[in-house]
């Protein structure tokens, strides 16, 4: 009886210790998250101000072109001075940086006015464009991950079959193809030559955004090609990654032991091979999201979608560092948040992480 109660007490103690470990893990991950976010914002702030070309002159040139008349030098000076004041670029750089952080954090994400659509706030601009990027990018990466993980697990498990070896060759070719080539190929053949699917724009030109079946179906058919271009390249990468993970797990001692136990091949695949190969594959998802975001920006431009990518390209042309920074800020935020979610999910998949991380 005494032995029983003492062993129960020990288990409780262990549980408390385990809970404390999990809590510390979460806290640590969150600290890393905040620090990385700050560091990234800081780097973005200074880098865009180093891009050559004065945004004020570019802006002035645009105004001049728009109005079709040349102003005299004095008048130009006045206009530039006014804009410089509005954008706060006369202050010394460190002060600008402090002001930027202060407004962004305390001013409710006030990221300053944009040049691209002056006087619209960059914040509003980013929020308006964000759904397109999230819709196309996030969905296609997640789909690519699901398909790639499943496919990779299968061809890793059947590594010696002919079909599996063929799949590896195809995936390798697709993975090394630049995403813009895939996108251009789809636009040229599927969009223009065969005319199967629309090759550009967010939805059919004659429609207005509204909750009708016609609009939604137009939206979805327009989304297929951009998503497919993203999925093909990223999915091929996920497939190859998962295959490699599966093959290395298949060589583990615990897999031999699982087979020796007389488990059905399905159980061995599900509980021993797939379950273990999945852990690094989840981490890969977070890494790939960051690495492929720029590819999506190219896709948006190629498919003429009004997302953050096209906004960034527009802003780049004007040296609109407020908008560029806001886009980068948003991207960093999205990638880091996803990484955080993955980090927090890992201990659920892998009991060893709770201790070692």
């Amino acid at each position: 009886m005494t032995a029983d109660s003492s062993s129960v007490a020990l288990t409780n103690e262990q549980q408390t210790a385990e809970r404390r470990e999990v809590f510390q893990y979460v806290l640590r991950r969150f600290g890393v998250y905040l620090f990385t976010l700050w560091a990234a914002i800081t780097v973005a702030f200074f880098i865009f101000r180093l891009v050559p070309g004065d945004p004020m002159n570019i802006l002035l040139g645009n105004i001049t072109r728009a109005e079709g008349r040349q102003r005299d030098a004095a008048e130009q000076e006045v206009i530039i001075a006014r804009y410089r004041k509005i954008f706060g670029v006369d202050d010394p750089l460190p002060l600008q940086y402090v002001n930027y952080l202060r407004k962004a954090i305390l001013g409710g994400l006030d990221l300053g006015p944009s040049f691209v659509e002056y006087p619209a706030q960059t914040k509003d601009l980013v929020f308006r464009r964000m759904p397109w990027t999230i819709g196309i990018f996030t969905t296609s990466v997640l789909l690519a991950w699901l398909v790639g993980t499943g496919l990779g697990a299968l061809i890793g498990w059947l590594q010696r079959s002919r079909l599996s070896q063929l799949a590896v060759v195809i995936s390798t070719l697709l993975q090394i193809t630049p995403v813009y080539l895939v996108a251009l190929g789809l636009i040229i053949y599927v969009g223009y030559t065969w005319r199967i699917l629309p090759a550009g724009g967010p939805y059919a030109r004659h429609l207005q955004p509204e909750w009708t079946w016609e609009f939604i179906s137009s939206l979805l058919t327009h989304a297929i090609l951009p998503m497919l271009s993203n999925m093909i390249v990223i999915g091929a990468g996920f497939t190859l990654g998962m295959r490699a993970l599966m093959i290395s797990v298949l060589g583990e001692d615990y897999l031999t032991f699982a087979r020796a136990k007389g488990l059905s091949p399905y159980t061995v695949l599900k509980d021993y091979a797939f379950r273990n190969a999945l852990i690094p594959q989840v981490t890969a998802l977070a890494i790939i999201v960051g690495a492929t975001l720029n590819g999506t920006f190219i896709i948006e431009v190629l498919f003429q979608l009004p997302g953050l990518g096209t906004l960034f390209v527009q802003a780049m042309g004007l040296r609109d560092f407020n908008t560029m920074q806001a886009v980068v800020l948003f991207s960093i935020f999205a990638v880091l948040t996803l990484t955080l979610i993955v980090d927090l999910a890992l201990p659920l998949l892998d009991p060893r992480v709770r201790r070692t991380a």
Partner: protein
Amino acid sequence: MPALLEIRGLSAGLRGRRSVTPVVSDVDLDVQAGEILGVVGESGCGKSTLAAAIMRLLVPPQVLQSGSMNFRLADGSYDLAQLPARELRQLRWRQLSYIPQGSMNSLNPVLRVERQMTDTLLQHGLTKAEAHKRSVAALELVNLEPKILESYPHELSGGMRQRVIIAAAVSMRPALIVADELTTALDVVTQRQILQELAAIRDELGATIILITHDMGVVAQIADRVAVMYAGKIAELGTVNGIFEAPLHPYSQGLIGSIPRESGQRVEGLPGEAPSPWKYPGGCRFHPRCPEVFAPCNERIPALLPQKPERRVACHLYDAEVAADA
């Protein structure tokens, strides 16, 4: 009494582009019910391949080339070499268990011990409660507490993991257990405890154990009979006492001579190195290292012939026919 496992002409090798490299060649071996049979030899002599072949766990490029392995049970006889995968799966764990080499990594790091012990039992048709009870009982055999079921492998020490593997392997009370280098990664104290536990399990369950090891000390400690392997073939087979007292094969003599006995005494090692499967010599595979090599050794392959009672030797020295020719 017929043997529990009757291996005849078993050959296994590594499949290359053009040919199969022999690793285990033409092995005949009878395993008697209830015994602990030690299989000893140097690294690379094919003893682990033999274990994997018996368990039908060879993975490409390893291939089973030929031979039969008759496994006699109360409900009939099964040739393990030919058995279809489905029937083999049902035999595994129920009648045929495996304690693998590298037991340290033989538990899945992300599943709790309970899951890994019971999943097989559940697939063999036990209920959840029965499976749990059996697992607890099996853990008791190796002196582990039931609460270990809640642990993940990384929370256990090496000795505990090894015990969990043994417990899992005996949980269905199998007729035959193949244990491959089960104490290699353990310190000597733990090693001795685990060997004692294994012997106790044999006595309690009446199981038969094939113990693969490179350690003559382990064999001396718990085996009843011993098969000495050299370069993929059995060199000598006999009782532990018989072979330790009077080894016949020059290789066995060398192996036993290399065991340190008294302090201060110089240990006699075997000259040369064991050949790799790609370089197995013709004739008797031991002849390049053999101190007593003579005329027929590099041409004729010696057969494993009975000598004294309970002893078989594959050496021309003891073959009257060969001696007469020479």
